[in-house]
């Protein structure tokens, strides 16, 4: 459906995108996740045709599109700043693209009405953008893209300007809409919670390269790179000595069971919720700090010269700083594939 082949982008001497290749299936919802400045927007801009790639090709629905101007591509975009036309009513905003593409009048009306309805905006169609709240504006931006019925929808951090509560509720709405509309979507964000909650597949980027890609569960539970592990939620990078299907931790205790055989020194990304603590008066591990977060409690535990992050459910009793604890690791664990080139951040 969408095939990005070895796209690069240079700004003068500095390279914003190292060769990037991605292919996306029809109807997929893919999130591009990465820290600020990693090239996410650059990639979207190239897809949209606002910026030209320095090399590489892009094919959409079997057609090579990289030489085309933006208006000739069958792509719609939702902007971080919404980019609603402030001098047009909601309805006019929705109709803008259709007028530009000279869609016939009756068809325009039909599509606009439909988009207004599924985005729950019918009552607001006559309002001007400045008369809308942030969340409503966001929905208009979305509707404006939906109405185009594009082969590909692009989203550039569309929720990042909203406050946390609103972000959560719109996130759910967006996933819902994607299901209803079924458009192939590329969603850019630097918020890992958003990426995990929404997407079929996550593409982790860093420093102009794709670090790895996979489903949220795969990337969270079995990241190949430390960067991915660190970017997708809290993690503890622990050096271990592997022996076949077992690995010895740097502190005393049972060895951890591994998902695959490995020998020698390696690193393991231990999730804070995978570590179990039990009170144990003479253990060398000590809780140094406790932060109550409501649904869970974050403990910092000092052991073998390391500071482990451990979360426990909010329903369990809180361990006070100073408490001595025994550490146990649940389940099979997974070792990182070391590759330094992608770990810089």
């Amino acid at each position: 459906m969408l095939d990005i082949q070895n796209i690069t982008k240079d700004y003068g001497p500095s390279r914003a995108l190292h060769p990037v290749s991605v292919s996306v299936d029809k109807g997929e919802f893919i999130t591009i996740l990465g820290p600020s400045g990693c090239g996410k927007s650059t990639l979207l801009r190239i897809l949209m045709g606002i910026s030209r790639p320095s090399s590489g090709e892009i094919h959409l629905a079997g057609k090579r599109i990289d030489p085309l101007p933006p208006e000739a591509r069958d792509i719609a975009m939702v902007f971080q700043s919404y980019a609603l036309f402030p001098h047009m009513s909601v309805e006019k905003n929705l109709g803008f693209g259709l007028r530009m593409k000279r869609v016939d009048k009756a068809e325009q009306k039909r599509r606009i009405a439909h988009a207004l309805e599924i985005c729950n905006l019918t009552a607001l169609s006559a309002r001007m953008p400045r008369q809308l709240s942030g969340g409503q504006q966001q929905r208009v931006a979305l509707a404006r893209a939906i109405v185009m019925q594009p082969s590909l929808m692009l989203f550039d951090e569309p929720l990042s300007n909203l406050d946390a509560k609103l972000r959560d509720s719109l996130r759910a709405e967006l996933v819902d809409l994607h299901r209803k509309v079924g458009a192939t979507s590329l969603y850019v964000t630097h918020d890992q919670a958003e990426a995990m909650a929404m997407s079929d597949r996550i593409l982790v980027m860093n420093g102009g390269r794709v670090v790895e890609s996979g489903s949220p569960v795969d990337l969270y539970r079995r990241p190949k790179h430390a960067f991915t592990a660190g970017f997708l939620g809290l993690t503890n990078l622990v050096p271990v000595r592997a022996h076949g299907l077992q690995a010895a931790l740097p502190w005393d205790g049972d060895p951890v069971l591994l998902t695959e055989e490995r020998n020698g020194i390696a690193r393991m990304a231990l999730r804070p919720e995978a570590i179990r603590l039990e009170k144990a008066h003479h253990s060398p591990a000590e809780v140094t700090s406790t932060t109550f977060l409501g649904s869970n409690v974050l403990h910092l535990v000092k052991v073998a010269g390391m500071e482990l992050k451990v979360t426990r459910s909010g329903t369990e009793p809180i361990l006070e700083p100073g408490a001595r604890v025994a550490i146990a690791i649940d389940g099979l664990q997974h070792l990182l594939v070391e590759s330094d080139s992608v770990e810089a951040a």
Partner: protein
Amino acid sequence: MTALFNDRRLQLLLLLAPGVGYLLFFFGTPLFQALRESLVTDQGDFTLMWYQRAFSRPSMVRGLTTSLYYGLAPVFVSLALSVPLSVLIRQSFIGRKLFNGLYKLPLAVPSLIAALAVIILAEQGGFLDRVLAHVGLSLPKIVRDDAGLGVIFTSAWKQVPFMTLIITSAFAAIPEDLRLAARAFGASRLQTFLRVEVPLAMPGISAAVLLTFIGSMGSYAIPDLVGPPSARPLSVLMVEGFKNGKFHEVYAMGMILSAFAIAVLIAYYTLTHRIGPQAVTGDER
């Protein structure tokens, strides 16, 4: 005492006093005097004669229409030049910074000298005419032609930088994302410009139009020097009147011109007030 200074109205008055007070005294007083003089005869009796004259004499009536013409026509020419110019100087090109500094030079050139420059350049038998004569052509009459082309070009020459400056920042204030959004939704470059950028820059453009209109309508030196001898705007007639000591008549014309300018300004305010009431800034204290 401190209580007095904490009174917000008093504070406001104290703050406004230097600027507004200054203008009230040094500008308002003479203006008021002019108004009074325009309403009395030599003997000091009340009369509307001077206004009546201004509205009945053919030369005066023509003066009024000429003033309007000299106010409006250059604005259109400047607009036609400034809008493309402000689009162009947004692009990146070699020497953009230099150009940015140089194009504003006419702002520092007094009208009188601008008119002199136009005479030297474009007069009958002037530089351009001579250059064209070498290739067997002749320059159409520009300076002192009946349509006032000389006045329009000279006024426009003075106005273009001013307008470009304002319009450029009006365009610059449009978020880049809006331009991109328009492109993304299928608008070509031209459509983006016409349907998104121009409407959004409209407040800036209209302010520029207004100020230049007022400026060129009241300007004296340019029409006097490069305007056609027959149709003269009120501003020129006023100065002429001064020379002959016809104060009452001159003040009456001055009042008409000013009233006109102010009417335009008020109309503008009432029109734009609906569109964007300015944000109320400032908390207490």
